[in-house]
């Protein structure tokens, strides 16, 4: 009797354990927000098929599917499965649910599948893209795009935005850009590229020293410091259009930081004789002074709700990072480790601040959680790593690194993984600034 009793108990414990994972799948959030990069989701993206009414050639099909694969891979959430392992016939893979044999995908470990149908006629394309959950055999997202061939990249990005929105509830980074400084022309000029490094373009061309680009919330203006008139002044320029303003107070005018969602910015001005942070309108008029303590207060960065700023101050003897509540005017110190902590950048998620610490002659990037106040080092033994900037969804960090010798722009996840170079231009690239993500241009 006892034997049977024990066996039953064991079964009673084991059976649910076997079934439970299945139960969990039903409620599983595809991407674990706490550390989405710890376990990348295996995704399969076979080469696109030609849509029934066209005979689109292989190169065009491959180009579109590769572009989709690269764009999604950039997010760091996915493990792109090797097409060599696919079980299906690569020519004309089925596109829609009734025709897909999901076992082909589940058995190679793919949890997500994207199929694409492309029709290219002269310079017009029609593209159908579908995202499937292979375990459930269910379509999650389906979109159709039509337009000129030149819009292919934009269509792919729109679809990626839909995919990420479905998986995380956030639209991601696909409409964002990165501004940075490059010396390729012989001077420090500001350049702009897409979030993935595509299509870099020169923004300033004044042959002087240009620094600290900062994006307005609607992506329509860039504020920056320039020595155009022989001293550091702030210029606020439209990206498309001629409207511009200048903040040219006596002394230094530095490092503007736009208030989230408003046409206002914070900047360090020293005309009063002391280097303090002021709040200004987007056209350069001073609204009020934000810091009061004697000493240098520089590098403001706003919390996403616009109620607090983190900034660098040497009021304690060496540069450290402080947080000030704009309304209560209370100031508290954030960094206590190390003697030189600068360049803070507040995550758009509000929970972390990334910054640069100079230790033993080397700059490295650290992240600190606002609540726990524990700093974590993200870069190691790889030259100087500076000026970190969060992606608009708080999932990635752009920064500059001299690990290859000349300074280049790098990207890593919020946890410091997947560090890779963004782009390569003549000269040296520094001070990346990631823009907000605007919904569908």
């Amino acid at each position: 009797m006892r034997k049977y009793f024990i066996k039953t108990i064991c079964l009673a414990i084991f059976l649910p354990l076997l079934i439970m994972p299945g139960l969990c799948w039903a409620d599983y959030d595809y991407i674990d927000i706490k550390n989405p990069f710890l376990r990348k989701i295996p995704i399969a993206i076979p080469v696109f098929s030609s849509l029934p009414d066209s005979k689109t050639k292989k190169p065009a099909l491959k180009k579109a599917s590769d572009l989709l694969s690269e764009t999604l891979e950039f997010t760091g959430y996915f493990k792109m499965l090797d097409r060599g392992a696919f079980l299906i016939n690569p020519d004309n893979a089925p596109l829609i649910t009734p025709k897909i044999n999901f076992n082909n995908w589940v058995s190679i470990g793919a949890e997500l599948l994207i199929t694409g149908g492309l029709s290219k006629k002269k310079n017009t394309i029609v593209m159908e893209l579908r995202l499937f959950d292979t375990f459930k055999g269910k379509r999650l997202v389906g979109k159709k795009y039509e337009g000129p061939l030149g819009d292919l990249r934009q269509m792919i990005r729109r679809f990626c935005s839909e995919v990420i929105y479905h998986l995380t509830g956030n639209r991601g980074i696909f409409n964002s850009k990165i501004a940075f400084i490059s010396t390729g022309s012989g001077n420090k000029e500001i350049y702009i590229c897409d979030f993935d490094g595509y299509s870099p373009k020169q923004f300033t061309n004044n042959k002087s020293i240009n620094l600290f680009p900062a994006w307005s919330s609607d992506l329509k203006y860039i504020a920056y410091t320039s020595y155009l008139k022989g001293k550091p002044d702030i210029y606020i320029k439209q990206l498309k259009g001629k409207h511009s303003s200048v903040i040219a107070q006596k002394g230094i005018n530095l490092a503007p930081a736009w208030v989230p969602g408003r046409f206002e910015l914070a900047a360090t001005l020293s005309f009063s004789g002391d280097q303090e942070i002021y709040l200004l309108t987007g056209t350069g008029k001073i609204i009020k002074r934000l810091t009061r303590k004697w000493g240098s207060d520089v590098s403001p960065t706003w919390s996403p709700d616009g109620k607090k700023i983190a900034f660098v101050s040497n009021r304690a003897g060496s540069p450290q990072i402080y947080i000030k509540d704009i309304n209560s005017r209370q100031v508290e110190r954030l960094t206590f480790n190390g003697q030189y902590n600068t360049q803070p950048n507040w995550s758009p998620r509000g929970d972390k601040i990334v910054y640069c610490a100079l230790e033993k002659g080397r700059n490295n990037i650290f992240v600190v959680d606002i609540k726990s106040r524990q700093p974590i080092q993200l870069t190691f033994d790889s030259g100087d790593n500076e000026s970190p900037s969060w992606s608009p969804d708080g999932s990635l960090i752009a920064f500059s690194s001299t690990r290859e010798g000349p300074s280049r722009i790098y990207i890593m996840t919020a946890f410091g993984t997947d560090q890779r170079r963004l782009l390569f231009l003549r000269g040296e690239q520094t001070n990346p600034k990631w823009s907000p993500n605007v919904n569908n241009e």
Partner: protein
Amino acid sequence: MRKNLWIGLVMLFLIPVFLFTVSCAQQEVKDTAEETTTEPEKAPEETATEATKEVTPDTSAEERAIMAARNMFLSEDVYFEFDKSTLDSMSQDILSRKADWMRDNSDVVVSVEGHCDERGTNEYNLALGERRAESVKSFLVDLGIDAYRISTVSYGEERPVDTGHNEEAWAKNRRAHCLIP
């Protein structure tokens, strides 16, 4: 009346020239003093040649001395410790000489540039460079130079004189430099 005006003009020219000679080496003082007292009309020419900075074989000892003093003013930089904008005793000596020169050349306006080494970050270094330039300005003003004669500019780490990545290069870059705009 005209005579008084003429005497007044002569004095106007004489006094600065006299001050020049005082700041030069002792031996030359006697010669130049004689020259200027006997030929007052030459004084404006001398100040003109000083401005053009030409040194010809015929340049008088006095002119050479003037040039040397000006060159010293322009080339002697003041240096700082890492992350500091305080002036050590050597810097203070250099600045005292600069103040003397500025007193001797009371019509000259000057710009002080503040610079930093490449370590640390651009924003913080721009602020530090300004503190260094202001530190020099305050010292000169305390020695009696009118504040309106001195403007300051910070270049942070943007204009190093030595692009090396070692302490020797960094020490050369942590400086304040005077120039005549």
